[in-house]
C-alpha cells in the first residue's frame, strides 16, 4: 500500500474500494496545503478536483448581494470537498475557502473520470463512495432545516 492509498483508506470515504482500486485512486492523488484565507475555488467556476481534508477547516460559501460571501457549511478532518466534477455541467455550485491552515489530499478528477468511464464497475464503486459522503451531508443539512433550536414563541 502506498502512502497515498493509506491516507485514502484512512479517510473512510473510500473504505468500499478494493486494494487495487485504492491504488488506482491514489495514483491520481497528491498532498496539498492551503493557508488561512486561501480560496480553493469560486462558485460558478469549472469543477476540477476533489479534496479529502486531512486537517484544518474549509468553508463552503456563496456571494449574496448585500451580505457578501456567506458561509453555508464548514468541513473538516475526514470530510470530502467537491463532487461537482462528477456531474454535468461540471461547475462549482458553491465556493470554497480555507478558514484555517488546511492540509488535504487532492484527487485529479479528470483522470478519475476517464478511469470511471473506461471501467464502469470502478466508476460505480467510486460513485457509491462519494454518494455515501453526499448522503451524510444531506442528512445533516435536513436536520438544520428542522430549525430545532428555534424558540416556539
Amino acid at each position, binding site marked *: 500500500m502506498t502512502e497515498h492509498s493509506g491516507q485514502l483508506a484512512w479517510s473512510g470515504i473510500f473504505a468500499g474500494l478494493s486494494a487495487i482500486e485504492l491504488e488506482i485512486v491514489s495514483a491520481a492523488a497528491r498532498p496539498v496545503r492551503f493557508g488561512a484565507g486561501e480560496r480553493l475555488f469560486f462558485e460558478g467556476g469549472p469543477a476540477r478536483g476533489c479534496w479529502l481534508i486531512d486537517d484544518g477547516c474549509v468553508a463552503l460559501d456563496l456571494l449574496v448581494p448585500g451580505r457578501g460571501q456567506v458561509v*453555508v*457549511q*464548514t468541513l*473538516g478532518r475526514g470530510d470530502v470537498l467537491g463532487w461537482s466534477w462528477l456531474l454535468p455541467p461540471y461547475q462549482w455550485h458553491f465556493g470554497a475557502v480555507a478558514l484555517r491552515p488546511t492540509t488535504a489530499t487532492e484527487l485529479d478528477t479528470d483522470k478519475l473520470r476517464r478511469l470511471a468511464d473506461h471501467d464502469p464497475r470502478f466508476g460505480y464503486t467510486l460513485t457509491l463512495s462519494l454518494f455515501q459522503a453526499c448522503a451524510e451531508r444531506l*442528512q*445533516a443539512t435536513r436536520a*438544520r432545516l428542522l430549525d430545532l*433550536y428555534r*424558540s416556539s*414563541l
Partner: protein
Amino acid sequence: MTGAETTWPATEPMLPVPYQVVGRATETHDCATLRLEPARDSLPPFQPGQFTMLAVPGVGEIAISVSGDPAGQDGSLTHTIRAVGAVSTALHNAPLGALLGVRGPFGTTWDLASATSRDLVIVAGGVGLAPLRPVVLGALADRGSYHRVCLIAGARTPAEFLFRGELAAWSRRADIEVELTIDQPATGWDGQVGFVTEPLARLPVDPSRTTAFLCGPEPMMRFAAQVLLHKGILAGDIRVSLERNMQCGIGLCGHCQFGPILVCRDGPVVSYALAGPLLTVREL
C-alpha cells in the same frame, strides 16, 4: 436507566420551599440564568442532571434542570430558563428579590462518577447546554479523573449560545476540546457552520472507553446517537436527558409516563439503550 439512583428530597416533596432570586444573567434574547437562595429552609444539594419544580406564585409550576456548579454547596440553586410559555416567561422575567417556590431536586443524574477514567463526549444543542453545564464544570473540577473531555455545542446563531463567556474560556483551555457550530450562516462568525452531528462525526473516538452525554431537542439527540452508534459506541454508554410533562416530580401523577418509565422518577437522564427504541414510537 443509568446507574444513578433517584435522590429523594429530605423535605416534603410536594411542598414548595420559598427561594429568592439573588442573581440574574441574561444569556440570549429569550434565556436568562437565575441564582436562587433559600428564604428560610434549604433543599438538599442537587446532582448534575437533576431538576427542580419551579413555581411562580399565581402563575404555575414547571420542571427546570439545574444548570449550576455542582461544587457550589452554599445552598443556592442555579437555573437557566427560556421564555417559551406563561410560566417560563414569568420565571425568565422574575426580578431580583422575587420569591419563587421550589421543589426538588428530583430525578436521575448524569452519574459522572461512573465515567471515571473514560473519555467524555458531551453534545449539547440549543438550551440543552444548560443541563450539561454541571457535567462540564464537574469534569473540569476533577479533571484528573477523566481522560479526554470533548464538548460539542450547537446553536441557531452565534448570539443564541448559552454561557458564551464560559464557552470562550473553555475553548482556550488545553484540557477540554470544544467544538461550537451554528445552524444558520451569520456575518462575522468565523467558526463552524453545520449541525452538531457534523463535528461529532469528525471527532476521533475510542468507542471502548467513551461515555457520551446528550441533551437537546429529541431529534438532535437521536441523530447524534446514531453517529455515536455508527462509531461503535454502545447504546448503554450514551446518556440522554428527556423532557416530558413533569407535574408531581415524584412518580405519582403519571403525566410524564413514557412507555415503561416515568420520566420525573426514572429520568430525566436515561441510557440510550432504554430511550432509543422509545424515541421513535409514535404517540408514546
